[in-house]
């Protein structure tokens, strides 16, 4: 029933708790499907130090779990009760696992 996503604002995350077994899947935030959670592990070189500080001020820190709610028109993240919109290119520079 994913009619334009109207009835599924947040699909059940494939990983709802931190992964504790098996090989961890390392990739970037832009590759995380909408509705899924991932743990931030670091930032790639494409993120300038200035940008990194802003992202960290919003709570996007290594070790933090974030939920991705969409990638189009921009990537939207949820960190606790804070919603952040960022361009998908920027999301590509945020390394995650899980």
């Amino acid at each position: 029933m994913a009619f334009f996503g109207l009835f599924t604002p947040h699909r059940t995350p494939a990983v709802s708790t931190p992964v504790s077994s098996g090989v961890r899947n390392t990739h970037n935030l832009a590759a995380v499907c909408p509705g899924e959670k991932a743990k931030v592990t670091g930032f790639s070189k494409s993120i300038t130090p200035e940008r990194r500080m802003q992202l960290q001020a919003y709570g996007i820190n290594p070790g933090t779990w974030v939920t991705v709610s969409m990638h189009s028109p921009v990537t939207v993240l949820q960190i606790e009760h804070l919603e952040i919109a960022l361009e998908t290119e920027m999301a590509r520079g945020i390394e995650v696992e899980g």
Partner: protein
Amino acid sequence: MISNYPGTTVEVARGKVSALQNAILVDTPGVVTFPPRSEDELVTARVLINEPLKAVIQVGDAKNLRRTLSLTVQLAEMGLPMALSLNMMDEADSRGVRLDHNCLGEAMGISVVPTAAVHGRGIKELISCVQTASAPALLLEYPYAVESVLQRIIPQLPQASISPRSLALLWLSGDPVSETYMKGHLRQEEYQSLLAMRESILEEALDLPGQIQVTRQAFVDKLVNLAVLDTGEGWKGISKKIGYLATHPVWGIGILALVLYSIYWFVGVFGAGTLVGILEENLFGGVINPWVTGMVEKYISIPLVADLLVGEYGIWTMGMTYAIALILPIVTTFFLAFGIMEDSGYLPRLAALSNRIFRFLGLNGKAVLPMVLGLGCVTMATLTTRVLEKKRERLLVTLLLALAVPCSAQLGVVMGMLAGISLSATLIWSGVVMLILLAIGWLAARLVPGERTQLLVEMPPLRMPVISNVVVKTLARLEWYLKEVVPLFIVGTLILFVLDKTAILDWIIRIGEPLVSGWLGLPAQASAAFLIGFMRRDFGATGLFLMEAQGLLNPAQVVVAMVTITLFIPCVASIMMIAKERGWRTAAGMVVLIIPLAFLIGGLLNKALLFIGWGV
């Protein structure tokens, strides 16, 4: 001004609080972190470093404690007496967030008060805490590399209102405000030696800002673990669902269309149609103006003075009638609509939704805030470009505002005229203006050096707008607007009156004839409208409105005139604002670019319409 959007307050507001005697409350723009990244955040940093503050109140979001505390730690390090208001406690409660605020206060040596400002909850307690606040004794210990640099720098620093340690930390993180402060308070050789030290550290490739950040973050994590009893995770409220839909690529467009239609109905149909009709025709045209004219004729025997007050270019009959009967209802309804959008938290979602269009213009979705506000008042919007991060973006948006964004006053007059002709007239006008906006925006983005900044914006939850909030904001904006508009309308009328009486107006009309009649294909009298368009373009549009009412313009001429006056420079006040914010050279450059461009496009449109035979 309170609003559900980071970036509404771009200037410092000062006021008295009855409960705090002899104290002045300074309200500063919101900040995410230091060093500041946009001009409005710079304003706040300047206040902290330069002004003799007695105490600081941080108003933070209770439900996003981690983010709030990241700033609290920085403020507490500054050593100024402070109180933290954990605001929006009502929202935190409804999401199941539970906090132990007392342990936070103890850990940082500051007073922490839970508040819900819109309901007045916790405000009394906050005020009493501010009165008794003492300097926090927070001392974060940084890694050895940072501490050793701090020890070397601190003895050389000038006195500031914030602690030397925090000034040094700011400066090490590359903060421009502390840099300016130090340059101004140290001898040149002293500053040069500090600068050399900082550069040698950077050459050693020690990421000091990163290390500072990591240390603070670790401390904040510890505090959060201590204070958060329940994170309220898994909350799914209706506002979250609507918020999701408002940003959705398909549903979002539908919601936007609905919002635009509502604004059109409220501002265009109700404000510019119904209210203007009542005020202009019934009240001013039918009651007030005949009465004023009668009184003037009865008591003032000098014809020139009577003419100055109630003549064709009379201060009352033209200036005040335009300002109050025509413009006021339109801007009032627009500011109300804008206030509701702002308070509801819709604007940041619009920023996300419109990001693609703004990418084309070398910008990002954040530019939507000044652009939408520009539909209310271009001058105000020029000031609001401060929320944009880079100088390049502020320049680009300022240009687009000055060129192609009609303010509500003008929009009202333009729409009123075009709607009277046909739908295709409106479509031609809006199509040409949009095309110019996109073309010039695209071109300017490629000509102005520098890279585009990517979008990164916080999206506050959607809320029911608080009516009192919206009304207060609308009144404040109206006061600002009236102070600016009424004097200009009076001066503009006065200039026209003098030009008319001294026959200079006739001369100008003759001089402008080749351009206005030959190129634009308008009657020669339209020169007068463009002349007062220099004061305000809506004033110019109103002049054309009168010409149309007298049957002097055919449909093609109306469309050409409206396109030209829309692309014209906005008003004297906006040029002053551009000069203030961007410098006189930029302002002069824009005038030199915009005026010929407006006439060029108007003339080309005239030829095109003649060619296809539309409306002639």
